[in-house]
């Protein structure tokens, strides 16, 4: 199929999978924001609601996300290898006019995000890393997991909190180029909208960074206990 073999087709696939993952990241951020207390019962109530979803729905969602990530990574690597081969000899003077640090490092910020997501899943979802904080999630008599206790215990550790904040800096870089780039690849852009898209992309990425970094930071400075 042309969508998976052609140059533009694969860019469109990168854009769609990327946008879907950004939508997931927004939902995840909404979930995290329950830690600020707008939902009765906070983070624990949210976690309980999530785990009360029918299993096929939950696992369908998880497997769908896994498939999106795999496709995004596969084509990202493939396109990058091809692109490197199309310019084997570099100029003696590197003088980029419009490319940014973020746009030039997409493959590396992407790789770092993959490592972070694996760590994050092992840390909070499967509780393999730091099992002593993971054990705090143990459900109470009603079967409600205590996610807040686990998260608070983890982020009171300076190293872990800073690791999460650092990973969100990487997310900021990846999204600041990625969001506007996906609009361009989909063809949802012209000369009037493009300057707004570039600014909006940076602002959106900044919003995600601030939202995600807020939870480890407010726990680290003991605002949330």
């Amino acid at each position, binding site marked *: 199929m042309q969508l998976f073999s*052609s140059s533009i087709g694969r*860019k469109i696939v990168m854009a769609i999978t990327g946008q879907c993952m950004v939508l997931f990241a927004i939902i995840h951020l909404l979930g995290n924001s329950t830690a600020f207390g707008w939902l009765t019962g906070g983070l624990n109530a949210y976690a309980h609601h999530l785990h009360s979803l029918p299993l096929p729905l939950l696992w369908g969602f998880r497997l769908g996300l896994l498939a999106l990530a795999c496709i995004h990574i596969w084509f990202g690597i493939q*396109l990058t290898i091809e*692109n490197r081969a199309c310019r*084997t000899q570099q100029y003696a003077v590197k003088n980029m*006019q419009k*490319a940014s640090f973020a746009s030039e490092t997409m493959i590396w910020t992407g790789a770092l995000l993959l490592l972070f997501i694996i760590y994050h899943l092992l840390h909070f979802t499967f509780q393999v890393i730091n099992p002593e904080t993971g054990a705090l999630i143990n459900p109470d008599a009603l079967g409600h997991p205590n996610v807040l206790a686990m998260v608070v215990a983890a982020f009171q550790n300076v190293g872990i909190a800073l690791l999460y904040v650092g990973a969100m800096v990487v997310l900021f870089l990846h999204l600041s180029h990625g969001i506007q780039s996906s609009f361009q690849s989909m*063809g949802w852009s012209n000369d009037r909208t493009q300057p707004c898209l570039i600014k909006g992309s940076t602002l959106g990425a900044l919003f995600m960074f601030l939202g995600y970094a807020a939870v480890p930071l407010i726990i680290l400075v003991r605002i949330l206990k």
Partner: protein
Amino acid sequence: MSDHKTMTLTLIVWRQKNANDPGKFETYTAKGITEHHSFLEMLDVVNEDLILAGKDPIVFDHDCREGICGMCSQVVNGMAHGGQDRTTVCQLHMRKFKDGDTIYIEPWRARAFPIIRDLIVDRAALDTIVQAGAYVSCHTGGVPDGNAILIPKPVADESMDAAECIGCGACVAGCPNGAAMLFTGSKVSQFAVLPQGKPEAAARVKALEKAMTDCGFGNCTNHYECQAACPKGINVKFIARMNREFLKAQFS
């Protein structure tokens, strides 16, 4: 002219005998250059000296020297056409440089543009893309009436903005991926917006996209270096339009 101050510049120029030669940089001194010399005239002065000294002159592409033919093709200090906005290197003047400057001069570098000699590259791949369908098929016969197809001015302008491309290949040279998306996007767009081009729009975008990949050009990563390099200021909106046309073509 004689009362003008002259400049002395150090040129570090890529010299390569043919496509198989690994090539290397050579250093030359350009003496007696005035601010009124164009970049290519400055090279002419250097070449006169080289010829008098019995050495091979620096070989470079050029034709009109008016900035409209798209023949000149040099990367100056890492920027295709030297980095002056909307200017080909033949229209870049030495007043943009200072006495004592060191200038790096390199050919377009992309896999799809093999080096023929020194600063000359083979840009036939761009012609291959055009031959794949960057035209409108029409039947021969009587001359059509001038106003038979009415085209609103904004639509005509949009098409002309894309058609301004002179096919120099600076977009490919500027692209870190050696991609020809701005060139191909402008060809797709100049026809896609016009009523005469619409019937073949879907087939055209597919054919041009395939030709582009087959010629060994890279994929777009939206750095927009192509737009910065383009001496005609072609906007990357035409890449977005090509992407849109390509997506539409999948369903037609």
